[in-house]
């Protein structure tokens, strides 16, 4: 997955990931994955109560080794399927360097699955 020798990645703004499963489903459909297989999997922490009385309830989608960063779609000029369908619009795709510049707030993470 490289154009001009750049590494590509997914940036997740997980503060607002709702755990809606759209990314997981989009990946399964796009890559025709069988029962029990995932190109991306949403991990969950919480809900649990913090000492300040607020709740921690976090989801983070984790691309697996089956993620190919939607090479076919990207080559056609489209967004990766998970990025396009993410209902909370918390995923971005791009070169690592560009994504790193977008890390502007807490609760963000960059994945480089390939």
């Amino acid at each position, binding site marked *: 997955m490289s154009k001009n020798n750049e590494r590509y990645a997914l940036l997740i703004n997980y503060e607002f990931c*709702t755990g809606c499963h*759209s990314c997981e*489903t*989009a990946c399964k*459909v796009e890559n025709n994955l069988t029962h029990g297989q995932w190109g991306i999997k949403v991990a969950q922490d919480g809900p649990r109560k913090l000492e300040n009385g607020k709740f*921690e309830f976090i*989801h983070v989608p984790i691309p697996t080794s089956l993620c190919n960063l939607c090479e076919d779609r990207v080559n056609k000029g489209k967004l990766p399927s998970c990025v*396009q369908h993410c209902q909370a*619009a918390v995923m971005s795709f791009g070169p690592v360097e560009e994504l790193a510049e977008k890390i502007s707030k807490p609760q963000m993470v960059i994945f480089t699955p390939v």
Partner: protein
Amino acid sequence: MWTGPGCHNGCGVIYYHKDNEVVGIEGDVNNPINQGRLCMRCINYLESTNHPDRLKWPLKRIGERGENKWERISWDEAYDIIVEKVRDIQKNYGPESIVAMEGTGRNIVWQVNYLCYSAFQSPNFTLGFLSGDSCYMPRAAVEGVTNGDFFLVDCSQQFEDRYENPEWRAPEYILIWGSNPLPANADGFFGHWIVDLMQRGSKLIVVDPKLTWLASKAEYWLRIRPGSDAALAMAFLNIVITEDLYDHDFVGKWTNGFDALAERVKEWTPERASSICWVDKDTLIHAARAFGNAECAAIHWGVAVDMSVPGVATAQSLNSLVAITGNMDVPGGNILVQYAYGQGLAYNYGFENVPEEVAVKRLGNEYPLRQMGFGANAHEDAVLEAIESGKPYPIKMLWLQTTNPIANMAGEAPRVYAAMKKVDFCVVVDLYMTPTAVAFADIVLPAAMSSERWGNRNWYTPLRTITKVAEYYEAKSDEDIILELGKRLQPEFFPWKDNKDWYDWIMLNEAFESGMTFDELQEKVYSFPKFEYKKYEKGLLRPDGEPGFNTYTGKLELKIELYEKWGLDPLPWYQEPRESPYSTPELFEEYPFVMTTGNRAYEFFHSEHRQLKLNREFHPDPIMDINTEAAAKLGITEGDWVWIENRKGRFKQRARLDEFMDPRVIRAEHGWWFPEKEAAEPSLFGVFDSNCNNLTSMCDNGPTGYGAPYKNQIAKVYKCTEENSQIMPSTQVTRLGGFPYVKK
């Protein structure tokens, strides 16, 4: 184009198709509604369109009802059988003995009623035994008399440029009441707009018995006792009024009955509401203050508002809260929405085609809101009673299109099952063989899915089209089925050539103000009518062009003058559920949980999608929520199958332990049946085994006819064992005459 495999929304999708078959689907990134985003139901659309279980051609029952034995017939044969039956019933009993029902989704809101009124000539169109019309109808009826228009959170959905629109601003607070909009997507509202708004600074107040993801992010979470919403809503009003947080200017100029409202809600002090609603008092006070003090704030409300006996009073209070805080039709408040280009075909479409002497026989006609046309449909509880008693006249035929009542919509499902078995003739139109079809149908007709039909969507804005790109065996669009049958029965009311011709007619002739033809709109894909805020100031709401609201007095009615004329309480009120910790404390000892039902999941739309492998991988079994300690006391651990039981019946689901649930409250899922199980009775796809509606009741409505206690029954919980699971509920209902402990 627009789709929805069975849903209320209107997300833009792009289909890829080859030789009349859809081979791919993705979100349309250019569509301002969803901007490419989709929920898993649309993403997995292909599995449902091409599923081997889909109905392929018309079927006629050859065995006994419930045996699941069918013979393939042609459409002509099916129509001939139906026409003969209809004629026979019309002649011997009167057209009113035919009842047509629909559920929800599949972009049907006006088609089945048109068939009922115009082809069958019966006034008895109704929703598949949805007791008290308890889904949006109570809210809609209240809005009809108080504002004359619906409201929605201002998420910029009315503007093509969305969040970039210079007039728009994000609400400071969004009060989410009785809804989990992220999976629900109800009423033309894309749930994740709420997350868009959170990303743009909106803060949340959430009223929900469950700590949902949204509730966990809220500044204030009010963990309400299900069914006590009207009391809590009045407490909100009381705090905003007594602490003088209301908009004097708006109240003075544009509303009617403020003093009476203030007087009425006075008794709903935070203390009283807190003890009745099981909500923390300080949280309640702070939440109401935050809402009242906000520069702009909006309410997003859900079906929980409707699903109690005082449902209309809850809706009235929340509507009043938006109004007196000055948040009606302002940026970042609740916008008054109208059907795009005035194309508001609804349940009254075609009612004028019912002969006058028959129209007055509509079941439930005694309720004034119905007579006045706020909801033209018949009262489903009255329909049930008519089937059971034959009074005021017998019901001889049921037409069920896009509804699967015993799996889903009908309160007191075992009672409805017994009643439906008594009806002479029943037609089911659906995508799959459902439990309802197996149990009752004489004829089953295969319906097309959205990629296989023309259509449009006007709920609410923009107006958008559905484009036919595929065909599936002999399945027909709902409109084509209605049209072809209508032509045979009352051709004068069905002049259109086909599905698309009908839409063209609607777009040009039925209260449609844009002058676009169907093809023109299809070229554009969607079209946004011009939107303006504060329409009441500009004379844009009333037919006479005067400023004000489209109501009886021209004001926004905090006290509903029309109710008073009709002998109804014009102000909000509260009533305990018929069975509750306070109305029946002794019974509550035996059934020590308040049960709420119907929480939404991303995987399913009501009773749909249970046959899809992918969706079931995410969500294989029905789930109920119970407090961790309450479960421990009952010896229940995570994932155990448990029975939930009350005096009406029982059902089983898997326990999910939740330390944040009130230990006196449980929460169950609805719509469950198991397409993988045996279709024939006594199994009937296991439709009663996990059915929360074994415990709900019919015919327990408010004085307007609206509202029913779907979400506030009391129940007990115990673990499933081999011993106590000898007789499954489906067998109990279909073979043993129902649950022995039902007291009628």
